[in-house]
C-alpha cells in the first residue's frame, strides 16, 4: 500500500481534492472535466431541515461572491434574509412576490421540490434575480433532513431607488459587472479552506487508516462520493479489506478470501455486493454422485467450500448414520460417501454445525431408541475423517428439531426443540468445545421466549444470537411464529429481548412487512449481521420462496423483501441450507415429492461469481 503522505493539503483553497482537475485516467463518476467551461456558476446552499426554521449550514463560494454575504454571517440563519434589502432591513421587500414565497413554504411543508424565480438582494442592497431550485433530502426514516438550494443569480433590472441613507450607485455599478466577470470556478469550496470541515486538512494516511477504516462498508461507499479526493481514497483495496475486517470480523474475512474468484472481484466490490445484495441471484446447480439411500430430515453444514451431510430419515422412517461430502470447489462436484470407522448412532431432526474451522458437531435428534442428547465431533480433514464422541458433563434434555449455532468459532449453542412425549422446550445451553473436557452450561434467563421447535438461531455482531420463527407454544396450542428474539452473550447476565414482528408485550412496532409465520425455514447470516429468511412451512397460500431481510443492529429493525432474479426452489421446507464460503447459500432437498433429489441444488449467490 503506497501512501503519498507528503500531500498534506495546504489551506490556500487550491486543494486538488476540492477541484475538478482529476486526471488520473481512471473512470470518473461524474463528468467533471467540463466544469472548466462553465460560464455561469450557481450558488449552493444547504439547510438543516430538522432544526426549527431551516438554518443554513453550508454556502458555497459563489453564494458568497454574488450575494456579498460571507458564510460566517449567514450560517445558522434562514435564507429569507435574502428577501430583505440589505442586512439592516427587517422585513421582506415589497417587490418580492409573496405568492412565490408561499409556494416555497408549501413545497417545503410537503417535502417536494420547488422551482421558481424570486427577487433577492445582495448585502449592498442591489437586486438579484434568483432562479431557485430547492430539493429536499430524505434521511433513513423518510423524514426530510436537509434541503439543498441551487441558485442561478442574474441581474434584476429593477430601479429600486437608493437604499435609505446610503449611496448605493457606486457599489451597484461595481457589482453589476460582478456577475459577468466572476472568475471561472475551477476549484471548489472556500468554506472548506476556512475549516468548515477540518477533515480535509488531514493527510491521506490518517484519513484512510485511522478514520475511514472504522466506518462500515455502507458509509465508505457514501464517503467515496463526497469529493474526488475521497473517491480516490475509497478505491484502495487495503482500506476495503480493513473495513470488511472491522465490520464483519476476521473469521468471516478470512473465509471470504478463500472464495474462488474473490481476489479478482476485490474487497471493494465484494463489500459493496454483500451490503447492497445487488448481485444476488438464484442459480441451479447440478452435481454428480448421489446420496443413497434417499432420505429426508438430514442435516447439512458447510465447511469452507465443502458441504457435509449426515444422517436423516430413510424411506421406512429408519434413522440413518452415514456421512456424505460434496466439494463445491472441485471442477465436477459430486457427492461422496465418506467411510468412517465409528459413526454416531443414526438419527434425524438433529443439528450439524461447524466449529473450530474444519470440524462438525452433531447434537441431539431422534434415533432408533428415542431422542438423543449426545455430541459427536467430525474431523473432516483427518485421514480418514473420524467421528468422535464428546462426553460433555450435564447435557441438556434429549431433543429433536432444536436449533443450534456456533459462537466464537468454538462454542456450540442449542436451544428449544421437542423433548420426550412431545413437550416443547425453551432452554438455551452452551458447550465450549475448545476445552479439554467440555461442560454443558445452561444460560439462565429470567424470561425466555415461548418454547418452540423448528426455529432458527443465527449469530450476528460478534456475540449476539437471533432466534426466529418456529412452532411455538401458546397456552395449550401451538402456532407458527414470526417472532424475532435476540440475546447478547457478551453481557454479564444475558437476557432475551423481543425484536420486531412480535405480538409479544413490550415488542417494538413491526417495521416493514414481516415474513408469514413459519417453521423449518432457513436463516442465513450475512457478513454484515443481517439475516436472510427463506422457505419453511408456511400456513395458507403465502409463498415460502420469498426472501426476507432483517438487520437486527438497526435502531428500528425493519423487515425488507429482497427480490432476486433467477428461480428459487419451488417448495422450500423440510430442506437444509448451508452457507458456503460466506457468499453462497445452497439449498438441499426441499421437494415435497417422494424423491429427495440431492443432485439438483439451488444456490442463492450473494456476490458476483467470477468463475
Amino acid at each position: 500500500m503506497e501512501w503519498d503522505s507528503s500531500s498534506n493539503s495546504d489551506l490556500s483553497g487550491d486543494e486538488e481534492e476540492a477541484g475538478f482537475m482529476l486526471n488520473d485516467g481512471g473512470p470518473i463518476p461524474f463528468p467533471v472535466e467540463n466544469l472548466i467551461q462553465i460560464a455561469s456558476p450557481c450558488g449552493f446552499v444547504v439547510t438543516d431541515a430538522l432544526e426549527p426554521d431551516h438554518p443554513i449550514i453550508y454556502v458555497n463560494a459563489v453564494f458568497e461572491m454574488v450575494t456579498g454575504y460571507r458564510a460566517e454571517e449567514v450560517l445558522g440563519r434562514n435564507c429569507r434574509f435574502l428577501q430583505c434589502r440589505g442586512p439592516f432591513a427587517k422585513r421582506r421587500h415589497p417587490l418580492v412576490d409573496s405568492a412565490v414565497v408561499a409556494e416555497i413554504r408549501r413545497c417545503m411543508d410537503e417535502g417536494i421540490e420547488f422551482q421558481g424565480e424570486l427577487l433577492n438582494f445582495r448585502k449592498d442592497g442591489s437586486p438579484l434575480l434568483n432562479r431557485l431550485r430547492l430539493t429536499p433530502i430524505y434521511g433513513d426514516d423518510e423524514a426530510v433532513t436537509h434541503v439543498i438550494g441551487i441558485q442561478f443569480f442574474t441581474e434584476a433590472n429593477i430601479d429600486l431607488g437608493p437604499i435609505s441613507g446610503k449611496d448605493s450607485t457606486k457599489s451597484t455599478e461595481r457589482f453589476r459587472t460582478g456577475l459577468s466577470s466572476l472568475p471561472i470556478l475551477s476549484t471548489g469550496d472556500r468554506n472548506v479552506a476556512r475549516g468548515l470541515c477540518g477533515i480535509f486538512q488531514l493527510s491521506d494516511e490518517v484519513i484512510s487508516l485511522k478514520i475511514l477504516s472504522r466506518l462500515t462498508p455502507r458509509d465508505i461507499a457514501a464517503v467515496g462520493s463526497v469529493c474526488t479526493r475521497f473517491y480516490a481514497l475509497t478505491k484502495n483495496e487495503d482500506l476495503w479489506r480493513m473495513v470488511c475486517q472491522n465490520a464483519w470480523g476476521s473469521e468471516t474475512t478470512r473465509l471470504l478470501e478463500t472464495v474462488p474468484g474473490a481476489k479478482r472481484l476485490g474487497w471493494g466490490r465484494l463489500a459493496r455486493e454483500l451490503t447492497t445484495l445487488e448481485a444476488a441471484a438464484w442459480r441451479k446447480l447440478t452435481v454428480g454422485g448421489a446420496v443413497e439411500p434417499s432420505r429426508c430430515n438430514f442435516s447439512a453444514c458447510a465447511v469452507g467450500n465443502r458441504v457435509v451431510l449426515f444422517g436423516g430419515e430413510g424411506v421406512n422412517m429408519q434413522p440413518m448414520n452415514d456421512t456424505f461430502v460434496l466439494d463445491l470447489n472441485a471442477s465436477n462436484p459430486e457427492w461422496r460417501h465418506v467411510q468412517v470407522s465409528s459413526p454416531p448412532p443414526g438419527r434425524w431432526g438433529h443439528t450439524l454445525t461447524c466449529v473450530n474451522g474444519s470440524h462438525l458437531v452433531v447434537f441431539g435428534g431422534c434415533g432408533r431408541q428415542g431422542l438423543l442428547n449426545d455430541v459427536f465431533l467430525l474431523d473432516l480433514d483427518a485421514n480418514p475423517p473420524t467421528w468422535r464422541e464428546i462426553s460433555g458433563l450435564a447435557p441438556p434434555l434429549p431433543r429433536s428439531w432444536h436449533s443450534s449455532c456456533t459462537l466464537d468459532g468454538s462454542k456450540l449453542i442449542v436451544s428449544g426443540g421437542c423433548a420426550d412425549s412431545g413437550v416443547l422446550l425453551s432452554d438455551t445451553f452452551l458447550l465450549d468445545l475448545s476445552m479439554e473436557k467440555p461442560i454443558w452450561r445452561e444460560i439462565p434467563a429470567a424470561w425466555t421466549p415461548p418454547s418452540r421447535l423448528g426455529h432458527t438461531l443465527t449469530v450476528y455482531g460478534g456475540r449476539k444470537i437471533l432466534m426466529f420463527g418456529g412452532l411455538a407454544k401458546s397456552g395449550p396450542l401451538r402456532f407458527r411464529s414470526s417472532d424475532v428474539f435476540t440475546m447478547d452473550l457478551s453481557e454479564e447476565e444475558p437476557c432475551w429481548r423481543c425484536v420486531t414482528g412480535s405480538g409479544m408485550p413490550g415488542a417494538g412496532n413491526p417495521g416493514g412487512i414481516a415474513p408469514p409465520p413459519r417453521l423449518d425455514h432457513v436463516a442465513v447470516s450475512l457478513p454484515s449481521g443481517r439475516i436472510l429468511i427463506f422457505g419453511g412451512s408456511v400456513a395458507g397460500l403465502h409463498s415460502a420462496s420469498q426472501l426476507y431481510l432483517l438487520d437486527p443492529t438497526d435502531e428500528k429493525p425493519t423487515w425488507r423483501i429482497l427480490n432476486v432474479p433467477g428461480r428459487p426452489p419451488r417448495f422450500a421446507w423440510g430442506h437444509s441450507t448451508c452457507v458456503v464460503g460466506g457468499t453462497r447459500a445452497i439449498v438441499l432437498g426441499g421437494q415435497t415429492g417422494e424423491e429427495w433429489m440431492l443432485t439438483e441444488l439451488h444456490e442463492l449467490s450473494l456476490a458476483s461469481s467470477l468463475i
Partner: protein
Amino acid sequence: MASSRKITLRSSDGESFEVEEAVAVESQTIKHMIEDDCADNAIPLPNVTSKILAKVIEYCKKHVDASKAEDRVNDEDLKAWDAAFIKVDQVDQATLFDLILAANYLNIKSLLDLTCQTVADMIKGNLFPVRNEWLNFTFSIANRELVLVCLTEWVAHRRLFCS
C-alpha cells in the same frame, strides 16, 4: 521508571511548557528525540500551537497518572474522562482536527485513536449520496458537526459532456 526529570516543550507560537519526562514520552516522537539526545534545551514543536499543546499535555498527564495510580483508576472512569475530554460542540470542531494532526505528528497512538474514532462516529450512518436527474452530481452530508459537502457542483442545464 519514576524519573522526575522535566522536559520543556515549545509550541509554534513560542510558549514553553514544562512537563515530567514520563508525560512527555507518551509521545513517541518526543521519546525518540530524547533518546537521540536532542532534548537538552527545549524541544521545539513547530507544528503544534500552544492551545493544542496544552490539551495534549493534559491528556498525556491524565493517562500517565491513571496507569501508575496505586488503586488503578477504573477503566470505565478513564473512558468517561476521555469522552469528556473529546466532547465536541460546533465551536471546537477545529480543535478536534488540530488534535488529530498533533497526535499524528507527536505519535501518541491512544490520543490519535480517540480523536479519529470520534470523527468516525460523527460520520457513521450519517452520509447518504444524493442524485437527482437535474443535479446529477453526488452529494453527501453528514451531521451538523461535520459537514462533508461534495465539492463538485455544476450547472445542469448546461450539461457539457466530454466526448
